[in-house]
């Protein structure tokens, strides 16, 4: 038998066929079908299938993320439809609106295991490669078909091998590495390919960093991303309640055939950003002036222009606002848009620190993202940690600001305070 890549081995496992080659089309049996708030589309699609039954209800995983919490009665109705469907049909893997980001919820709770095939109604389902699974995004019709048949057609992909050598310098993150790769290879540089990440630097990465690699592989057009499981993976899974005996790791064979091998020297990398209007328009951050214009553009391309500086607009967010990188530029750019204040259910630690050091008022208030609607008038008292919603007349109590941090805010940040 010739040496095989991870993707070939996984699809042989998932289809029960031997001797597969890139380009072959197989009928595969996914181990898990992930759907977010788009699950309602699958439920509606079932109505077109006479006498449907669910082949493996235990393989259906719904996480009420994406359009969450509901901003309109229509969206709330979709959530209810999913909730009732899960309840009626014995779908036990159901996480409601408060659970978090779909992929992280499933990985963190032990639903994703090495060597598995996972399909999801989200293009970034490639993220499951961080645990050595083949994760890939699909449309709602095909996910619905998998609910009923337990199978889905899959093309065996070619593979690209990325070798990460050296060590990322301080303040340079896997995000920068992936942006550089996307800039070099192009947004279609890995279309329909499996992208395997190897090399000494990958072995030293946390699962969360590996998630960044695999998640962003999709931005290269990839079908899936993959990091070979190791003791880091085992430790993550153990914490998620998965014992080593509960999964069967798949590693690519020595000498497997790759369409392309890309060597990346991490040592020389600088922070990078993707500029409008394509994800592969990537430049080193130093070349990009006026970052404020790009703040939150993925959520709303007009964000920076819509901020009403005179009114002191308040940005409201959910949990873990500002997580991932510790870059202060995230806070500086946000402050530069003229936003008066950020209120969130919770903040990532580094963002919280950076905000005070930059002089941007922030208030942590669990539940605020569910309680407040877009466009509400808010009155924020950072010192007391309170937010009054003028629409409802309700005052919500969050975390008061520590007097030391309050002084820092009043001084205009850490540097200004030290100079004073």
């Amino acid at each position, binding site marked *: 038998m010739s040496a095989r890549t991870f993707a070939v081995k996984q699809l042989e496992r998932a289809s029960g066929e031997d001797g597969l080659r890139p380009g072959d089309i197989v009928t595969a049996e996914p181990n898990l079908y992930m759907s977010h708030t788009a699950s309602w589309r699958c439920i509606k699609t079932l109505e077109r299938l006479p006498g449907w039954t669910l082949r493996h209800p235990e393989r259906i995983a719904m996480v009420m993320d994406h359009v969450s919490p509901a901003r309109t009665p229509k969206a709330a109705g979709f959530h209810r439809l999913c909730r009732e469907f899960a309840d009626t049909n014995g779908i036990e893997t159901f996480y409601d609106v408060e659970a978090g980001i779909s992929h992280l919820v499933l990985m963190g709770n032990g639903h994703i295991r090495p060597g598995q095939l996972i399909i999801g*109604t989200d293009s970034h389902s490639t993220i499951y490669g961080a645990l050595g699974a083949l994760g890939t995004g699909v449309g709602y019709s095909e996910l619905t078909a998998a609910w009923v048949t337990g199978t889905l057609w899959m093309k065996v992909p070619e593979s690209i091998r990325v070798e990460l050598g050296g060590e990322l310098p301080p303040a340079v993150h896997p995000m920068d590495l992936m942006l550089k790769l996307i800039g070099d290879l192009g947004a279609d540089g890995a*279309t329909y390919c499996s992208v395997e990440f190897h090399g000494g630097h990958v072995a030293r990465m946390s699962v969360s960093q590996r998630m960044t690699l695999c998640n962003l592989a999709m931005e290269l057009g990839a079908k899936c991303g993959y990091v070979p499981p190791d003791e880091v993976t085992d430790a993550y899974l153990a914490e998620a309640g998965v014992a080593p005996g509960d999964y069967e790791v798949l590693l690519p064979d020595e000498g497997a055939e790759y369409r392309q091998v890309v060597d990346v020297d991490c040592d020389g990398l600088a922070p990078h950003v993707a500029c409008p209007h394509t994800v592969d328009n990537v430049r080193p951050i130093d070349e990009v002036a006026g970052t404020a214009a790009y703040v939150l553009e993925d959520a709303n391309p007009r964000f920076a222009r819509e901020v009403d500086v005179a009114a002191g607009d308040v940005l409201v967010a959910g949990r873990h606002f500002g997580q991932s990188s510790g870059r202060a530029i995230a806070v500086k750019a946000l402050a530069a848009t003229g936003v008066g204040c950020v209120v969130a259910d919770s903040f990532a630690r580094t963002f919280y620190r950076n905000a005070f050091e930059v002089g941007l008022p922030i208030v942590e208030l669990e539940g605020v993202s569910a309680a407040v609607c877009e466009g509400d008038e808010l009155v924020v008292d950072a010192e007391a940690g309170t937010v009054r919603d003028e629409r409802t007349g309700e005052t919500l109590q969050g975390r008061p600001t520590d007097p030391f941090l309050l002084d820092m805010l009043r001084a205009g940040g850490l540097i200004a305070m030290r100079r004073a």
Partner: protein
Amino acid sequence: MTGGSAKRSPGGFGASRTPSESAERLASRLGGRCLKLGDDVNTDILIPGRYLVSIDPAELAEHAMEPLGPDVQARLKAAEVVVAGRNFGGGSAREQASTCLIGAGIQAVVAVSFARAFFRNAINTALVAVECPEAVAAVQDGDELHVDVEHGVVAAASGEHAFAPYPEALRRIVEAGGLIPALARELEEARG
């Protein structure tokens, strides 16, 4: 059916095409007037995220290519074929990127290359999507062109341009009118 004739009315709730309609279409040529676009037409351009509250082809068609402005939208509605450059349909895995084109009366997309998720969604909703760089280079916006899926030929005033025909497994899905209609028929037959 040859192109330029009456436009097919969009299907019902989430429907794409009836199996007989698709089989007939594949047996003959499909096509007509084209709308020609450039590279990297992504899913946010095809159907912005705020409209994903619908899966109805007719409703979605109203907002197809909205970011490109009313002129392009009008030309899309008058066209039967979309011709595009590299990486058509990149970005999200949203199936509505294909459904909205079906709703707008598009029978085929001829591109230099497709993003993976768009190509899958096109096959699964029975929208003909073929990669034919030669045809893309040869035709102009507004030209008539026809796609012969069975023989792998795009025919235009510029001549006949070959492309690799679909593998059997994918052709069967398209012929059946898409993945869901195919499965519905299977289930119907199983029930007797």
